[in-house]
């Protein structure tokens, strides 16, 4: 999953060095919209009533707005909301939408197969489906409501009552939002049940031809699988839901007074041996992101041979675990790459792919490395206090052909960061931890809490060699530097900021699921407001078109903003088109001359226009948390709050737009 750069809520709201304040932008937009509205309103009025009379007309509309909002009556508003909802239900759109949803779930389940992270496919499927159906539904019901009322003239009997334009607009929005919310809750609950039912499965321990359990010696030369270091025997489970798990027997040697294994039900034998205890225990290997809990019962009738003993054992394998995760990654604040000569770079070494999301470091004896700077590393974030889970997803680029199965070795080193006030503190540097990278899969490394390393004074003199504590020594001020190196000559390791993080204690899954649906709900609210606002001055088909365009714009707004800030290779639309025809490479500049100048200046006008539009179109990708749920990451509160603020701003703006359009509209004409 690509995690975009994300500012903190306060930074976002009040602005920082490279992000203008969202509040500031909001007020700027409101101001611009007000001025534009006044100007446009005046023009229309002047056309109708002449330039001087127009002034009074505009003044009257503006001064009427105060009472219309302040004296808004809840009883009237809710009466209109209720009626709007009733009318929408009668249109059967909801029924159809729900039927499509039900059918999709009934038949969609057949097509979801595969052992590798099936929960991603399931969650992505239900969330995408729910999102599309809900947005379509509120768009349809809101696009038809007001225009139908005006066409049928039922609006005559409404506006000749003491009903204010504000009440008509707000009432409708509330009515449709209420319906949408109800349907969304229903779809959310059904989706959760569907996903849970679809993923739920159990295994048995597989048996051989003679119907016996057969545990065999671990074959360490088998490719494509790595057994645990202390595994002595292994077998497989039955194939269920399209996959099997390896079941290993581990020989787990622990100090006598060290903590016992977590799952004591999986222990076959507990053998005391001097000041150690040997636990022979079972472990199920996880497959595609999930595992099971195993327990075993053996008759200790004197059989010494472990494999024999296990033949007569009773096993119990629980239902799947680990599908429903809400991981909380502690990302680095900053990532710095260093090239072979040791110069800091904001991007890594180029491996030829311009669009690469990862930056690369080169291997061997060079100064090339990547440094991750973490902040806010505290003991309270992790529940397993003796180990810190570090999750890595590393890309590999091989410049030297060789054994492609041979994995590349990676070195990790921790160091304290002393800057500013802490500059005089002691500095800790750990020894390098080495391991082999597993390409393109999430690797979980349990970093021990105490690491061997060295302690330096602020002036750089070595004070002590020894074991130091990650929380109390290295990250005393919450900051930590992680240096990553590629240890193999002529190979490259690729990484991005979001690729390496400490995994704090998971959050409850239902809470994350709820947040994901809040995202859909916010999108729904914006679409409802869009539909209602547009329907105050457009006819239903045009409203639908406008809403669909806005949604599409909204989903691509990030890309469009990039286009507007001219960072896309190959220039604007006209230049790209020329390149497309002439088959010119996108990175080579076009030949100088008048043609190019004309082309780029048209492009820049276009791009500026697009840039202006992206400012007033909601950025739906910021309200869309389905990727978080799909990949099992926790939606952080800052993100959710920003989404809430964005939606609030748009809903407010659209409601006001709808109000003025309805207020100034001649309904009987």
């Amino acid at each position, binding site marked *: 999953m690509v995690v975009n750069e994300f500012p903190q809520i306060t930074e976002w709201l009040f602005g920082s060095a490279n992000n203008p304040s969202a509040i500031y932008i909001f007020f700027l937009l409101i101001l611009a919209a007000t001025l534009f509205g006044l100007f446009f309103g005046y023009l229309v009025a002047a056309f109708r009533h002449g330039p001087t009379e127009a002034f009074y007309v505009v003044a009257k509309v503006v001064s009427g707005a105060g009472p219309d909002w302040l004296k808004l009556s809840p009883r009237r508003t809710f009466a*209109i909301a209720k009626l709007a909802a009733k009318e929408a239900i009668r249109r059967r759109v909801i029924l159809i939408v729900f039927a499509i949803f039900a059918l999709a779930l009934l038949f969609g389940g057949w097509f979801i197969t595969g052992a590798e992270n099936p929960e991603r496919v399931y969650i992505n499927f239900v969330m995408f489906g729910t999102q599309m159906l809900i947005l379509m539904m509120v768009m349809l019901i809101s696009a038809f409501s007001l225009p139908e009322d005006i066409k049928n003239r039922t609006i005559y009997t409404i506006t000749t*009552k*003491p009903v204010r334009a504000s009440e008509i607009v707000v009432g409708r929005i509330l009515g449709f939002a209420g319906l949408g919310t109800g349907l969304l809750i229903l779809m959310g609950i059904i989706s959760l049940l569907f996903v849970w039912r679809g993923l739920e499965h159990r295994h048995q321990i597989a048996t051989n031809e003679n119907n016996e359990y057969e545990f065999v010696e671990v074959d360490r030369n088998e490719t494509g699988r790595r057994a645990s270091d202390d595994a002595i025997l292994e077998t497989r489970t039955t194939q269920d839901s399209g996959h099997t798990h390896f079941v290993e027997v581990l020989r787990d040697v622990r100090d006598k007074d060290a903590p016992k294994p977590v799952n004591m039900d999986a222990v076959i034998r507990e053998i005391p041996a001097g000041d150690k205890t040997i636990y022979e225990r079972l472990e199920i290997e996880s497959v595609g992101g999930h595992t099971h809990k195993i327990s075993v019962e053996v008759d200790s009738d004197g059989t010494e041979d472990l494999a024999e003993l296990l033949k007569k054992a009773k096993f119990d394998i629980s239902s799947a675990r680990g599908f429903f995760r809400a991981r909380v990654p502690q990302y680095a604040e900053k990532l710095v790459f260093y090239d072979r000569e040791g110069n800091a770079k904001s991007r890594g070494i180029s491996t030829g792919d311009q669009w690469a999301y990862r930056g690369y470091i080169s291997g061997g004896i060079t100064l090339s490395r990547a440094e991750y700077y973490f902040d806010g590393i505290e003991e309270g974030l992790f529940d397993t206090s003796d180990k810190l889970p570090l999750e890595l997803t590393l890309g590999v680029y091989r410049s030297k052909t060789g054994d492609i199965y041979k994995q590349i070795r990676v070195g990790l080193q921790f160091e304290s960061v002393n800057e500013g006030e802490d500059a005089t503190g002691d500095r800790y540097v750990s020894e390098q931890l080495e391991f082999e990278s597993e390409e393109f899969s999430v690797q979980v490394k349990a970093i021990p809490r105490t690491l061997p390393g060295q302690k330096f004074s602020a002036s750089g003199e070595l004070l002590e060699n020894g074991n130091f504590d990650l929380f109390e020594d290295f990250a005393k001020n919450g900051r930590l530097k992680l240096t990553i190196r590629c240890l193999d000559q002529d190979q490259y390791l690729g990484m991005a900021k979001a690729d390496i993080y400490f995994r704090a204690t998971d959050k409850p899954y239902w809470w994350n699921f709820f947040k994901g649906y809040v995202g859909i709900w916010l999108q729904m609210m914006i679409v409802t407001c869009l539909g209602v606002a547009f329907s105050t001055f457009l006819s239903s088909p045009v409203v639908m078109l406008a809403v669909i365009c806005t949604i599409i714009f909204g989903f691509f707004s990030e890309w469009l903003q990039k286009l507007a800030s001219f960072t896309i290779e190959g220039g604007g639309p006209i230049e790209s088109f020329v390149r497309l025809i002439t088959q010119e490479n996108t990175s080579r500049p076009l030949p100088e001359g008048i043609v190019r100048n004309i082309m780029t200046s048209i492009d820049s006008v276009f791009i500026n226009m697009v840039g202006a539009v992206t400012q007033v179109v909601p950025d739906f990708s910021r309200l869309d948390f389905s990727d978080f749920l799909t990949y099992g990451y926790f939606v952080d509160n800052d993100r959710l709050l920003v989404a809430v603020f964005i939606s609030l701003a748009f809903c407010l703006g659209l409601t006001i737009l709808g109000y003025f359009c309805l207020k100034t509209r001649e309904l009987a004409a």
Partner: protein
Amino acid sequence: MADTATDKAEQAEDKRLVQTNPDYDPSVIVETQNLSKVYRDFWGRQKVRALKALDLEVRKGEIFGLLGPNGSGKSTTIKLLLGLLFPTSGRALVFGQDASETTKNERIGYLPEESYLYKFLTAEETLDFYGRLFDMPAKLRKERSDMLIEQVGLTRSKRRQLKEYSKGMTRRIGLAQALINDPDLILLDEPTSGLDPMGTREMKDMILDLKAQKKTVIMCSHLLADVQDVCDRIAILHQGDLKELGAVNDLLQVSDETSIRAKGLPQSAQQEIEEVIRKHGGEVLTVENPRTTLEELFLNIVRESEQRPGRRAISEQDAENGEN
């Protein structure tokens, strides 16, 4: 009780208006000054001049009729008074306020040309909904809607959806919704359109009833009889121009004709009377046995058949005719 409450509110409102506007006369309910309306198309091009410089004044407690052929601008005038249309020039004042003010609607009831109501609601739900739009509390809504349903004679079908209603029933529920707030000014657009003679008569009676309650009514119609029967004053519109304005009695009186109706007079007496008229220099225009109007005849038949329902009514009459 409700009446006194609204009267008080009305007086307070009037007082406020008098204070803010020294020209305000509480006895003038509706006033139009040079009111004109031009319908335009999307591009602002002129389509129809529906109303030309209308000056009117409707006073408290009167029934005012707008009379004119189809397309003469009656509905346009009413919509301008309600703020559903914006005047092209001139002004429309209702209760001394501009017609575009929403607050004036508190005291207005409106029955559109056709009852534009939500077809999926029942009569009860309809009245309850419109009651809510007046911010009426639940108890008052229930009271008013029960009373009005009774009054317009829809008690038996009050739980049926409006889409099942006949034209006449739709008209009745339309009137009921216009009266839900016990308005002081009622605007009726073709109140009798689509009604059978019975319904027409009932509608007219209800309008006269409103007059008895000191309400002001503005109605428009192209049916002369309706207007003649209920209106105090009328304005005749044609192609957007005001052609005639005045009290119905004055307008219809033919001052140089006299009619005499008598009963049980022998043929000879008629000749004598004709001679007397000639002696005085008058001219006898017609001498005839008066006929009842078709409307009255029809109403009589229907009333009779209601008292004795079934086909019997006709066969009995046939039998009587046969005996004679």
